[in-house]
């Protein structure tokens, strides 16, 4: 597993893109002035992926998301969803498109006047293709999947935030869509509920082979569920790639800031702290199985170096374990130690 980038394995089988943006841009006209929300963007989302868009508020991620189901109309460019050009669609086409693209929201947007079951049934009754009994059966299935069967007769006001979002998810899945759009779906939830909702999304992605596009301002959400991530800043995608790569080796300042926010480290503060530490300082990144291998001890013994751990984190990116350690290394054969790290497929960055 180590050595090859994660996306090698993803690309080994035939790739199908379910969403494609070709030079899409969007400008709003506010008070006679053109305000660009999204600069010319080209983007492809693979079928079956969980694709994350991260950015601060006003970065254009919400606009980009709403262009996919055409809640926003692009100012130019071409958007293809499931092999259909959605930029040229008429009202009927758009209605069909939106039945293929489910959406969930930060504030759930459930109808307070309808029961849980009626909320979930809504996309089906609107489509008007199924009989009443078929709808009832589908609703029961959906509520079962999100674990809310016993709440079918309740009104949204009687549910907790996490339960409301589960209703939102059930509703979004009602028409068996190919794509699910998540608009800050966990931003209004507490950490524990966030984790359970993300787990449900990952489950749905895996079992239904549903493509998920989610937007968030939390790197943690990206790290937990996404396969690929695009970082947005001021209407531009500034960095994009497999989550492990972007998360562990961020290059753009915006990305770095997001990663640091997630790890709760302040790089300049850290630099001051390490100023009086002797020796060389390196950052090692382990990924996959090597995370759990006793590499450090072995290499230190063989090359005679001493090390102290200055900072570190061992965690998971979706299903892949990773570790990132900042070490101070003194004495022994330092060059040989560095070479051994590289030979063991550990990514090494010399900080000082």
């Amino acid at each position, binding site marked *: 597993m180590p050595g090859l980038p994660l996306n090698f394995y993803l690309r080994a089988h035939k790739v199908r893109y379910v969403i494609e943006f070709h030079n899409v841009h969007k400008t709003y006209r506010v008070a006679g002035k053109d305000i660009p929300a999204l600069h010319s963007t080209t983007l492809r989302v693979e079928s079956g992926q969980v694709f994350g868009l991260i950015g601060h508020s006003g970065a254009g991620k919400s606009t980009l998301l709403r262009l996919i189901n055409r809640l926003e109309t692009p100012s130019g460019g071409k958007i293809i969803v499931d092999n259909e050009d959605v930029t040229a669609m008429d009202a009927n086409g758009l*209605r069909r498109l939106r039945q293929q693209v489910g*959406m969930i929201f930060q504030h759930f947007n459930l*109808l*307070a006047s309808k029961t849980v079951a009626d909320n979930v049934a809504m996309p089906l009754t609107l489509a008007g293709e199924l009989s009443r009994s078929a709808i009832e059966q589908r609703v029961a299935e959906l509520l079962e999947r999100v674990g809310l069967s016993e709440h079918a007769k309740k009104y949204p006001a009687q549910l907790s935030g996490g339960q409301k979002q589960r209703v939102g998810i059930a509703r979004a899945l009602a028409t068996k869509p190919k794509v699910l759009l998540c608009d800050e779906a966990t931003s209004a939830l507490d950490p524990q509920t966030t984790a359970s909702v993300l787990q449900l999304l990952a489950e749905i992605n895996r079992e239904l082979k549903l493509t998920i596009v989610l937007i968030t301002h939390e790197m943690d959400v990206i790290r937990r569920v996404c396969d690929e991530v695009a970082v947005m800043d001021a209407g531009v995608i500034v960095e994009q790639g497999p989550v492990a790569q972007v998360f562990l080796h961020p290059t753009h300042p915006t990305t770095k800031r997001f990663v640091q926010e997630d790890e709760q480290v302040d790089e300049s503060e850290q630099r001051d702290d390490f100023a009086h530490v002797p020796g060389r300082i390196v950052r090692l990144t382990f990924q996959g199985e090597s995370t759990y291998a006793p590499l450090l001890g072995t290499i230190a013994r063989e090359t005679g170096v001493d090390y102290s751990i200055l900072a570190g984190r061992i965690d998971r990116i979706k299903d892949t374990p990773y570790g990132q350690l900042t070490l101070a290394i003194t004495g022994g054969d330092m060059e040989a130690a560095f070479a051994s790290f590289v030979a063991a497929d550990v990514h090494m960055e010399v900080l000082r």
Partner: protein
Amino acid sequence: MDAFLSFFSNIDWLEIWLATGDTLMMLGGSLLFTIVLGLPLGVLLFLCSPRQLFEQKTVYAFLSLAVNILRSLPFIILLIVMIPFTVLITGTSLGVAGAIPPLVVGATPFFARLVETALREVDRGIIEATQAMGASTRQIITSALLPEARPGIFAAITVTAITLVGYTAMAGVVGAGGLGDLAIRFGYQRFQTDVMIVTVVLLLILVQILQTVGDRLVVHFSRK
């Protein structure tokens, strides 16, 4: 106690009974037509207003002006100005039938504004979510906007009904009858305080019932 009863001994209770019936008929009839005309007008006002589904600046400006003109007209003037028009549709300008057209014209713009406000209270996110489900504009109105605004609409109907009770009293000017008319003709003009008290108490009971029923409906449909 006897003094209390003898105070009301001169009242013609049949007259009161008939007047109550007239008031209820005027109220019921005008409320029905006000809802039938005002609800669509309110929906239209809402949809055409800035940043809504059918944003139409000129249509909105026109509707809004028409509504404001009718609302700024004192009802007593409207009653008189409308007489030829009332005769045209009901054949008479007198009685319950003669009162209903001006009552409807007076209350509809008021009710439409209240409906517009109630619809504006619906979270934009709900409209967006319904759009995202693939709903047509008509479906958005019937399946999302109106059900979600139902508590607000019931509150609007309650306020309108009570306003109409007040208007029916003025309708006596064109010979409409009803409790308000009785209060003015006997209670005020003939100084029959007993009639005044009885009619006012009956009107109060009517308003009280309307408000209570309205409030119950609002709570029932609020689902909170």
